[in-house]
């Protein structure tokens, strides 16, 4: 399959490496030092049990790639405004785009520019990072879930799933991808906002009963927004999600890491989206409004006053 990966950072790079190694015609669309290194030395993937180098195409210019069968959209959400229109040269008559971003708005943002029927909303669970230019480290193997927005049986989804599975990527077709996206969003928006504002890892924070309450309150808010929007979400989601967070090993949330390092954050796609969507539909979101108010100054990296 001819596949373009827009944004070959931790997640995109890892998927691109695996799909390339399995013999697909993979193009990574990247910039700067990372691009130079991939062109010169190929893409190196370091996994928990193995490591390899794979030769894949890489460019910073989608027009050089031309139409593909599949686009994986894996840039950070704050880049969407600039990046989405640059996808147009990749679109042919039968091109599908899987959005693999945090938040719940990507498929609509891409659909508005590229046509809603071309978009397959997806979610991923992974932990992988660029270790150095051209080198990706994968701590937790990526799992992907995607599907059609209108939950129809799709002809293209099983083909795509086969390509992923043949590359060793655990992949599932969801009949309700928005439900999957929202379940992830409800947990992630609370985790990212609270641990960034507290500048503490989840494990440390969850020792405190008040912090557990705040996690639950934040998740209740986004759950209420999702339910009001007609997303099919289970009633016991908040309690189950808290148990899930408590079951995780010690880790740092990625937005907290970006915040700490003074990099731009995905605040708008997380707490920002909870507030925005809540306003649209008349649901109050005081916890996320509070988190947003203290995190906003760091949204684009270190505030100039620092």
């Amino acid at each position, binding site marked *: 399959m001819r596949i373009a990966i827009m944004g070959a950072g931790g997640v995109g790079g890892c998927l691109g490496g695996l799909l390339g190694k399995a013999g697909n015609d993979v193009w990574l669309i990247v910039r700067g030092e990372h691009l130079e290194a991939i062109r010169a030395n190929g893409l190196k993937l370091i996994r928990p049990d193995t490591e390899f180098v794979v030769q894949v195409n890489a460019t910073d210019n989608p027009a050089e790639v031309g139409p593909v069968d599949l686009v994986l959209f894996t840039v950070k959400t704050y880049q969407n405004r600039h990046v989405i229109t640059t996808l147009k040269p990749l679109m042919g008559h039968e091109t599908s785009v899987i959005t693999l971003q945090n938040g719940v708005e990507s498929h609509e943002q891409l659909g508005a520019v590229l046509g809603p029927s071309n978009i397959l909303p997806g979610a991923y669970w992974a932990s992988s990072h660029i270790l150095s230019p051209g080198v990706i480290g994968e701590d937790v193997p990526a799992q992907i879930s995607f599907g059609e927005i209108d939950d129809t049986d799709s002809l293209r989804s099983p083909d795509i799933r086969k390509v992923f599975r043949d590359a060793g990527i655990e992949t599932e077709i969801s009949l309700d991808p928005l439900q999957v996206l929202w379940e992830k969003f409800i947990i992630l928006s609370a985790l990212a906002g609270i641990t960034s504002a507290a500048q503490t890892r989840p494990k440390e924070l969850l020792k405190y009963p008040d*912090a557990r309450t705040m996690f639950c309150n934040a998740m209740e808010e986004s759950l209420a927004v999702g339910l009001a929007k007609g997303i099919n979400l289970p009633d016991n989601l908040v309690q189950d999600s808290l148990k899930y967070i408590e079951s995780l090993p010690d880790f740092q949330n990625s937005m907290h890491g970006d915040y700490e390092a003074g990099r731009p954050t995905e605040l708008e796609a997380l707490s920002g989206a909870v507030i925005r969507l809540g306003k649209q539909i008349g649901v109050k979101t005081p916890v996320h*409004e509070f988190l947003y108010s203290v995190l*906003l100054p760091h949204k684009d990296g270190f505030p100039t*006053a620092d």
Partner: protein
Amino acid sequence: MKIAVMGAGGIGGCYGGLLAKARNDVTLIARGAHLAAIKEKGLQLIQPEGDFTVAVAATDDPSQVGPVELVIFSVKAHQNSIAIPLIEPLIGEDTTILTIQNGVESADELGQDYGAERVLPGSAYLLSNITSPGVIKQLSLVPRVAFGESNGDRSQRAVAIRDSFCEANIEAELSDDISKALWSKLLYNSPANGMASAARLSPRDLIEYPHGAAMFRSAIQEVANVGTAYGIPFGQDDIQRAMDLITARPMGARGSMQADLEAGRPLELEAIVGSVRRIGRKVNVPTPVFDMLYTLLLPHIDGSPESRWTCASG
């Protein structure tokens, strides 16, 4: 006047240095490198309009000082459980304890050990830091302080202390409603320090953001609601005044708790943020913003959770 300053940091050191320069018999109670530097070279005070060094007695052992006329109690509020018993040797029959700590609970805490009649509640209005051991930099143009008897009386001792401060070029004001004065400081100081700590941004920089300003207003409203239910009535004009005070701060000027947080030091979280929430619960007033501030900052109360193991001595 024979004076001991318990806690000669930015605030206590500034008042203590000025009182010593005005020929009061001052002893600074301090510790560590700061104490050693003061003993060796005196205390240097850098003011906006010039600086001076004053030779002043200093010790870490109050029993060497003995009873004094005035104790200025200016340690960080989170040190009270250790610092309050330590001042016992300073207390004689006619000793007054002037507390200028953050929060509204300090006089009660001191009163429990030494009798409420001995304590003069007060409030410092002063930005001032230790810049290096023995050196204190006063950022406010004029060091100000307000204090008064809890019952509002214009007592002889309060007047005498006020006069000593004024002679030392400290703008001292006798308040006939010191509770209102303390709560009025809490009204802007708790939101300013709490929000700035959670945002890791100076209060003035944060209030420039419309979302930040809205959250400041909610936080100030919560303190006003708690104060009003507690018997210190606040109106909309008080809330606007608190907003204006935060807006009038210099850009980049960090709150003291924010500075402690960013340096990984213990926080005055209980006195500054916890008090609003605690008193709110007593008088049945919800404090959702302060609950969240408290929750987010609690892991840092004894210093950074990341570094707690390596710098337990602070």
